[in-house]
């Protein structure tokens, strides 16, 4: 059955008190809880996205032996607020040749696709908005809206840079979806389910219980997933759709003010979601080492563990961006179709054979199981 944050809360006594407060109307109470938590999650993710821009500049400055933003607030921490205000007070310019309807629609599609993925991100065992049975499959599917948004953004601007960026972006996003999906298939195979709860429940808190170290193929699948996910979020070294030195700013060249802000926000939140999914699927997610009981205060610990893993991956993403040079378009496509996709299929086959040959045991289980 699908588990949601409401059905998790309903096992505690204060839920009944709340229910009485709402006059026994369960639908209304559920709606209120979902709305409050949804706003909270979006607020949190927007903050993380804002901090992401700050972290990006600070880390890049660090890697290039510069200082980075340090004027606004202590250590330049309020830079993101200044950026946000600036975004809102910029004039909205639309090229007169643009397709007006699609020009408005494109950032909305990106934003909707990314926000909808937040519904299944597992922050802790209870605090997952909807632990659907089709969890990761849903996540891959709904995030493909971003590809349509990127393409339409490029098309609607009616600018040559935008158009090139949009075409490249859409073809890159759909190409890299294949290795990502097949890597996720390998993990589905190991876990025996597509829901995030099932997948994380099959792992443990300690590294040797993670799916990353389950078998050699899963180890490879981790990297295939991560590289593919980087490309899907248009991050360097796969930032061809917005390559500054070739395409000015790619598909959002003509976007100013808030509409550009929505594209940027969607991108940063998507990076966060992708890192969160990698942490959940391969790095044990919110599992606390050694503790398997489930009480309410431990949810906070689980949340902290999940966020730590996710933000560490976020750091890796930024680190990669400022270390590696950009790929060429033909290299980009050959990396996807000639290296990542065959490797992902190999991983899938390998994981299936491993499951049958060793009865679903991981390497660590086999070694530790042999001792007694």
């Amino acid at each position, binding site marked *: *059955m*699908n588990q949601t944050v409401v059905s998790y809360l309903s096992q505690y006594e204060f839920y009944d008190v709340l229910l009485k407060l709402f006059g026994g109307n369960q*639908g209304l109470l559920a*709606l209120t809880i979902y709305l409050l938590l949804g706003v909270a999650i979006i607020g949190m993710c927007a903050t993380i996205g804002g901090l992401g821009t700050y972290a990006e500049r600070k880390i890049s400055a660090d890697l290039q032996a510069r200082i980075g933003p340090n004027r606004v607030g202590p250590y330049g921490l309020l830079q993101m607020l200044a950026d946000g205000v600036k975004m809102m007070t910029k004039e909205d310019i639309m090229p007169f040749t643009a*397709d007006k*309807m*699609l020009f408005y*629609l494109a950032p909305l599609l990106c934003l909707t696709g990314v926000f909808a993925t937040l519904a299944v991100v597992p922050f802790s065992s209870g605090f997952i908005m909807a632990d*659907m*049975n*089709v969890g990761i*499959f*849903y996540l*891959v*599917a*709904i995030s*493909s*809206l971003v*590809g*349509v948004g990127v*393409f*339409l953004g490029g*098309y609607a601007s009616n600018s040559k840079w935008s158009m090139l960026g949009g*075409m490249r972006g*859409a*073809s890159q996003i*759909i190409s890299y*979806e294949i290795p990502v999906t097949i890597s996720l298939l390998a993990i589905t195979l190991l876990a025996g389910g*597509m829901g995030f709860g099932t997948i994380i429940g099959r792992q443990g808190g300690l590294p040797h219980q993670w799916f990353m170290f389950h078998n050699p193929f899963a180890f490879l699948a981790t990297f295939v997933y991560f590289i593919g996910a980087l490309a899907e979020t248009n991050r360097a070294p796969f930032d061809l759709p917005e390559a500054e030195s070739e395409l000015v700013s790619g598909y959002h060249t003509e976007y100013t003010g808030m509409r550009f802000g929505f594209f940027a926000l969607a991108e940063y939140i998507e990076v966060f979601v992708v890192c969160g999914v990698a942490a959940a699927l391969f790095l044990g997610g919110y599992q606390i080492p050694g503790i398997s009981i489930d009480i309410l205060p431990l949810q906070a610990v689980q949340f902290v563990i999940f966020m730590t893993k996710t933000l560490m991956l976020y750091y890796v993403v930024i680190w990669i961006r400022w270390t590696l040079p950009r790929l060429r378009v033909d290299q980009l496509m050959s990396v996807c179709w000639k290296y990542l996709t065959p490797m992902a299929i190999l991983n899938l086959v390998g994981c299936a054979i491993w499951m049958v040959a060793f009865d679903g045991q991981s390497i660590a289980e086999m070694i530790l199981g042999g001792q007694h």
Partner: protein
Amino acid sequence: MFLQFLFISSAFLTIASAVAVLLTKNIMHSCVFLLASLIGVAGLYATLGADFVAVTQIMVYMGGVVILMLFAVMLTGGKDFISRAQNLLGLPASMGNRWTYGIGLIVGLVFLLTNIKLLMGITKSLPVKTITNEFPSTVNEIGHLLIKEHVLAFEISSVLLLGALVGAAIIARPRKQN
């Protein structure tokens, strides 16, 4: 309550955007309306409790087919997306002349009659199923069916897809200029 809301809004989205696909004169806009219509269909599947089918609809149609259509439109390029020619009814000429409408009418009538005949049979023979609010997972059921009862169809579909892949590759291959 929520289910009714979801059903009505999905149905409205599906039908309204489908009509908009027909009425708009800009081919890019009709692609986008088609996207909205397909989202509505996914919503309808979701209200029926078919979670896997709903997500498949999103994955294949929204993520794949619509983008492919957009690419296909970009193959033609140019500003001539917007068709200004009109037929007798004042609709875009690309929607057909009187012959296409006539044939469409006949096909639609036959289809409608067949469906009524089929549906009559079903309603008579099957007991009316009470609608429950239980949505068990459809994924495991589909998996078991694919791997046991319908394993031949499952394997043959892979051959079908192989054929489609080879065909797509051959069509798009650069050819010698004549």
